[in-house]
């Protein structure tokens, strides 16, 4: 049975795995953005924090993904559910590009613009939300895009701890030495990554500040 026949026979099943996959990545990205953007702002504000924060995120990035899932398994609340565990690990991976790009975006705001904002009597909060963040939005989004593509790939490994997603097919295919099964997981995952990359790059271009 080749891949195409497999797709024809199990459309619902594959669709469900795809939705699971998107769900894992989506929740992980929401968490990563919610944590990473404030950390990025902190790094931009307090340069001495950049080493510990970026260093920490860097270390998370270098842990092999299969090992990271293993490391998180004994963590009390996380280890209870496979999906929780997978989402936590994926969010950790997504963190570095988001922190790095947020910090880079904010530090690259023209100092003259920042000084004018201060001189006009804007409060630090107004400067952040009305000037610095809007001007670095496209850079932040570029980080989110890189992180999303990365996470979609790594999420296939979440199946190893039973979190579902498209990785299920890949692992099953590996175990059964069935290329069609592997491709049934790998092709939709690759398409997802390409699609996310395309959509987010459109958004990024649309939000890029005119210079």
């Amino acid at each position, binding site marked *: 049975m080749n891949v195409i026949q497999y797709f024809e026979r199990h459309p619902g099943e594959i669709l469900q795995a795809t939705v699971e996959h998107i769900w894992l990545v989506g929740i992980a990205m929401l968490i990563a953005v919610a944590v990473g953007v404030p950390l990025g702002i902190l790094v931009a504000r307090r340069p001495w924090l950049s080493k510990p924060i970026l260093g920490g995120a860097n270390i998370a990035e270098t842990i092999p993904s299969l090992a990271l899932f293993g490391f998180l398994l004994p963590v009390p609340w996380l280890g209870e559910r496979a999906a929780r565990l997978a989402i936590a690990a994926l969010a950790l991976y997504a963190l570095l590009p988001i922190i790095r790009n947020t910090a880079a975006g904010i530090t690259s705001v*023209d100092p003259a613009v920042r000084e004018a904002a201060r001189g006009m009597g804007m409060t630090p909060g107004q400067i952040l939300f009305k000037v610095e963040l809007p001007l670095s939005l496209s850079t932040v989004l570029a980080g989110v895009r890189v992180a999303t593509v990365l996470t979609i790939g790594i999420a296939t490994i979440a199946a190893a701890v039973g979190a579902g997603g498209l990785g299920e097919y890949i692992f099953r295919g590996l175990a059964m030495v069935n290329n069609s099964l592997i491709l049934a997981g790998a092709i939709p995952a690759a398409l997802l990554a390409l699609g996310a990359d395309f959509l987010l790059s459109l958004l990024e271009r649309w939000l890029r500040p005119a210079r």
Partner: protein
Amino acid sequence: MSAGAGPPRESGAAGAVIAFRRVHYALPKGQLLLRDIHLTVERGETLVLLGRSGAGKTTALKLINRLLEPTGGEVQVEGRATLAWDPIALRRHIGYVIQETGLFPHYSVADNVALVPRLERKAEPYVRARVEELLALVGLDPARYLDRYPHELSGGQRQRVGVARALAADPPILLMDEPFGALDPLTRAEVREEFQALQQRLAKTIVIVTHDTSEALLLGTRIALFEAGELRGVYSPREFLASSEPVAAAYTAQLRRLEGFERGI
């Protein structure tokens, strides 16, 4: 802050809007950028801070709207030390124009000019009328420029928008740091002349930083000469031309050379 220290204070001359009282400013590492500055700015006058790069004139300007805080002495605005002001209230009381204009690239011309009135939560119809009024005032046709973005404007137009933005909340004081510095010579002369006309109509207290002697003589009612972090003297334009103070004389000598060159042609 240091009450009682220093010489007896002369009761601030009537109408002094800005006063430097024995002001020192040093960087955290200890380098002294301003030494013992004593200076008052009267209501309605245009004081020019003249000096070469690094003389401390921009530092002095930023002490007025508390972008920097004095490390010694005090700067007073409307009779109150800047450190006693709420910095946000102080800055909204003072218009600020800088060389690169610092226009927000993500805001249209209208939104840039409307910035401070909106921060002050003025009613939207008022803000819109005010923006049009100001653009007309600085010589930009509102109908044509309201919706443009800074990158779509020439240097001279950007500078005008910068001035309009600084005037938007009608502050009694205006600070300008090399406001015409980034413009080519012809545009510079043009914008400067328009500004002179504006100056007379607005009757604001203005402090301008420049390193250009002829600009200082044209725009200033008085000229404060800075050199290496010290105030060398305050002169009317006429006094400045006649001054024998070595630094002032060096500036006028440079002007005369230019005149001599003109006559030589």
